[in-house]
């Protein structure tokens, strides 16, 4: 009950507000809204000054979980069965879709610019260390076999 009360008080963030926040926090990125219900964001990300630069593509359709893809030749070890914290790998197109959060850690009450984007940058940092060491230092959970992963957001 307490949770419901909290949500009643908070307003969902409109796509247009999300886009404005993304443009303001990351002016180098490109952001569009398609047919009023889908947000598209692209940017070049470098997780540390000595890291490589990666192409990130984010799409978010209302009612669904945001999809974050890293795209391009800089991605390595796409064949590795231990590739960390991803939903899927498209080897042909050289892209991976990241799995950045659990359950309610993101919702349409939160800004993408303050959640998904910093988490993506962080993922890339841990990814580069993982490439050389085989160790994922960023923590996290792996759903057990049989757990259903659903792109549909439960609290939207």
């Amino acid at each position: 009950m307490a949770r419901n009360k909290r949500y009643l008080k908070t307003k969902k963030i409109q796509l247009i507000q999300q886009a404005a926040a993304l443009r303001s926090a990351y002016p180098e990125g490109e952001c569009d809204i398609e047919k009023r219900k889908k947000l598209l964001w692209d940017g070049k990300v470098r997780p540390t000054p000595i890291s490589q630069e990666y192409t990130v593509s984010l799409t978010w359709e209302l009612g669904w979980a945001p999809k974050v893809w890293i795209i391009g030749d800089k991605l390595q070890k796409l064949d590795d069965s231990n590739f960390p914290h991803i939903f899927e790998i498209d080897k042909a197109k050289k892209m991976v879709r990241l799995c950045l959060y659990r359950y309610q850690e993101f919702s349409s009450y939160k800004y993408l610019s303050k959640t998904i984007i910093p988490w993506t940058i962080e993922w890339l940092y841990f990814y580069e260390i993982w490439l050389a060491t085989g160790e994922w230092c960023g923590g996290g959970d792996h759903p057990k076999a049989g757990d259903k992963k659903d792109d549909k957001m439960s609290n939207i």
Partner: protein
Amino acid sequence: MTDREQEYSKYLRKIADNIDISDTMRDKAIDSYNAVGRWLGDCSEVSDLKIYPQGSFSLGTVIKPLSDKDDYDIDLVCLLKDMHSASEYEIKNIIGNRLKEHDRYAVMLDKNEGKRCWTLHYDEFHMDILPCSPKETVYLEPYQTNIRFTHRIAPLKYIPKYSNPYKYHEWFELRMQVRLLEARKAFSAQKQVDISEVPMHVVKTPLQRAIQLLKRHKILMYQDAPQTQKDNAPISIIITTLAAHAYNNENNVFEALNSILNNMQKHIEVRDGECWIENPAMPEENFAEKWNTEPSKQAEFARWLGQAKKDILIAPLGEYGLHNIIESMQCSFGSNIVRKSFSDLGYQTKADREEGKLYVSGLTGGLTTSACDGAVKVGGHTFFGKK
């Protein structure tokens, strides 16, 4: 300094921490040499004995051995303060005989008498004990600290040699005075202890870390080299002395290494056609004396220096991607240590995020722990999804 150099320096520093002697091992060594000192001082022939570390153990530049099979090398001065007029034979053998009187030390003592030292073998380290007496009638720190030690030229035949480890240590501290004071102040504030009570080994300056990294690079460079090259590899005292000369109190490891590697050669003098690296604690001693009779030693120093510049200053900064930088640093410092150091900082980053101390500085400024203008805090989250 560029952002890239600053970031790279963080990893160099972590590697230096990881090749440093562990606290446990240091304490073990200190307990062990104090015990030796008590035994040596507790006999009728010796009334005033002082045992203290010299070399890397006293300068805070000790590094871990490459493998578990190798052990640490701890150099100790064993000063017989009231034996100024004793002969070299007496000085050397009073200590040797006393060690042989002890059940355990007698077993640990190296069967071969060293040219200058007695060596005790412990499980994880060996101690080179240098018996000596004051050079002048009185030994009084910090004013009169020259020592006379013995050099064996034939069985039971010794000649005197002189040194001043106390003064060398004092000179070394002076070369990094600014950063040392800063580190001591920070430690005393953090632990709420008086600055005079901050032990030397708990603070570390970029100079000490740079020397540790250079020594590690040298060991790895010569690890698989032919014996002739190994024999001519630059000695630690030369690297340490030239590094301390070239250091200008830079405040991070990369800047220190940059300054040292680009300037250390300038501190090699030529006097009457001979190479000179003066012992700052004893100007008549030339650390590079052998270079003048064995020119391949000088050539090997130049080769090591060129390689170190390339391996430490140039190659890693030519790479993009932590994984590529890790790859490029492995030849300098060893693959396990380099990978462990990057992972250590990775786990630290995760801990910073969990404590709400992690930010991103735009899309390309990278992760940072400083909340600078426009930085976005990385909120709590859990990476998910299949492995």
